[in-house]
């Protein structure tokens, strides 16, 4: 996973609530067995017409937003399906940071696992950032994870909160499996607790 430290980039405004993961990446694109290559299919239904031509009114088809690395939306971004293909598609498109008043839990979690920083901020602040984003290429936002601030084009800073553990993982570009495996002894001891004796095993060959 790539580190996330500081990002200065174009932000795309998408003033919509409840952008679900089916919109971010429709199910017919989930047949891949890889994590990469989904960027061209991100937001497919809104981005392309039935013949596969770009729809000019969709924000990510417009300059400079086709180079956006930040996405700003309204409430409940990423609701619906747990598909990690949604952050994979955003990442493959080039998005590294998503800002919204609120996020669906699984999507929020999936972003961190892929080096994308999701930032929840109050609706009024999202509106201000949305206005900044509408100014286009002269109006880049800087997202500084080290200092936990967003710097607006006018120089004003907006502080944001991020879970310390997740911040650390993003700053260092770590994934957590190795870290959890360091707790192997505790996991083994948990598995042998007498109170867990009732939990049946599913042995190989018993599935029919």
């Amino acid at each position: 996973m790539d580190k996330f430290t500081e990002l200065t980039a174009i932000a795309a405004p998408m003033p919509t609530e409840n952008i679900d993961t089916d919109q971010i990446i429709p199910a017919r694109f989930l047949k891949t067995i890889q994590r990469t290559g989904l960027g061209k299919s991100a937001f497919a239904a809104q981005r392309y017409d039935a013949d596969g031509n770009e729809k000019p009114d969709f924000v990510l088809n417009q300059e400079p937003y086709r180079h956006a690395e930040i996405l700003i939306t309204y409430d409940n971004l990423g609701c619906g399906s747990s598909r990690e293909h949604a952050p994979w598609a955003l990442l493959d498109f080039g998005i590294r940071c998503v800002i919204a008043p609120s996020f669906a839990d699984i999507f929020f979690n999936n972003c961190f696992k892929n080096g994308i920083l999701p930032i929840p901020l109050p609706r009024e602040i999202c509106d201000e950032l949305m206005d900044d984003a509408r100014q286009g290429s002269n109006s880049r936002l800087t997202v500084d994870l080290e200092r936990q601030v967003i710097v607006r084009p006018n120089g004003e800073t907006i502080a944001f909160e991020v879970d310390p553990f997740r911040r650390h993982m993003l700053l260092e570009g770590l994934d957590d499996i190795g870290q959890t495996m360091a707790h192997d002894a505790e996991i083994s001891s948990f598995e042998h607790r007498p109170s867990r004796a009732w939990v049946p095993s599913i042995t190989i060959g018993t599935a029919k």
Partner: protein
Amino acid sequence: MPVTNSPRTLFDKIWDDHVVERLEDGTCILYIDRHLVHEVTSPQAFEGLRLSGRRVRRPDATVAVVDHNVPTSDRSKPIEEPQSRLQIETLEKNVAEFGVPYFPLRSASQGIVHVVGPEQGISLPGMTIVCGDSHTSTHGALGSLAFGIGTSEVEHVLATQTILQKPAKNMRVSVEGKVGPGVTAKDIMLAIIGRIGTAGGTGHVIEFAGSAIRDLDMAGRMTLCNMSIEGGARAGLVAPDETTFAYVKGRPFAPKGEAFEQACDYWRSLASDEGAYFDTEVTLAAEEIIPSVTWGTSPQDVLPIDGSVPSPSDVADPARAAQIQRALDYMGLEAGQKIAGTPVDVVFIGSCTNSRLEDLRAAADVVRGRHVAENVRAMVVPGSGLVKHAAEAEGLDKVFLDAGFEWREAGCSMCLGMNPDRLTPGQRCASTSNRNFEGRQGPDGRTHLCSPAMAAAAAVTGHLCDVRELVRETV
């Protein structure tokens, strides 16, 4: 593990019993009892294990099945779509390499992962259960903490049998009283989502309580918990009770004999304590719930069947007004129109929400002696091979086939349109599935969520209608 005498919720108790270790910032290493795996969200996870030379820590707590991508037509033929075939073959290669128990496509027990888990007794009360699918919340009907995870977490669970998480907040949704005739678990859940909104449960685990919930059979409780995610919740739960134990007893992978009795004692102890704290409480009166459908493109866009479609001018927030207009345009509906009478092209009875034997019986009761309306394509996709077999033993297949329904093989099918079962652009569908998002059932398809009985009523009349009127005719 926190030792406390203060009253705890069902969620608190299951959580506490699975904390391996609490890290400095409050993140917990949470042990996972059951990991269900399917073909769509697992290939990258197994590949990750392979690249880092890791094994599956507990193959005996892991079960794989194919469901999302599988054709629901003739199973004797090879799978036509090459990408679907590759995904299924990849799962088969992975389960063989990592030693994971697997229900193959042609097994009688194959089916939708959230139907198979409870049906086989793989999912049990008091357990933590995960799957790379948001509708894992279904298994909460048994009184287990069950939630969907992403593929990175699938890999984490495969490698460590744990997950890193902070505890959720507690929410209790109580439905008190008795529902009227023709009102099902689906209607209750649509009413709940209509009330709390699609983000109402964010950060929470919902415990469903109250007399109307206690009265539900296990299939109904599964429908309810299934759609917890549509209310934004991490998981849904119903406290295990005698209904639960009767359901679990004798299932292939459930504890047997004395072990079962001991497990029941433990499961009984999990019910929320008197006075336990809930961060959020919501109460609904069962009598006020009537058969419901969705009109828009979010599950919170719910209407009682006698209701009218909203108008952008009903709301003050311009963003919300724009959203309503967009949903109206997408759905091809006029602001203010009655939802009843809207003609449908397709009826889909199936999905992890509503494809169990009880669901098929409810639909068959409406269909019996009637015929699918002209120009309507109607299909029934049982949730598993075992459901299909049991339904055929009762003659339900004949009821549906005689009425002009398609009777298909088990799988996710038109709930998400990964296999060939899809809406074509502009088609309108009465669907027993869980999501009415734009394009969910096929590009530019239009979905109205409803119960199996309501879907059956739409199939035989050709339009959205109040099932109670049809049932009344036959009484």
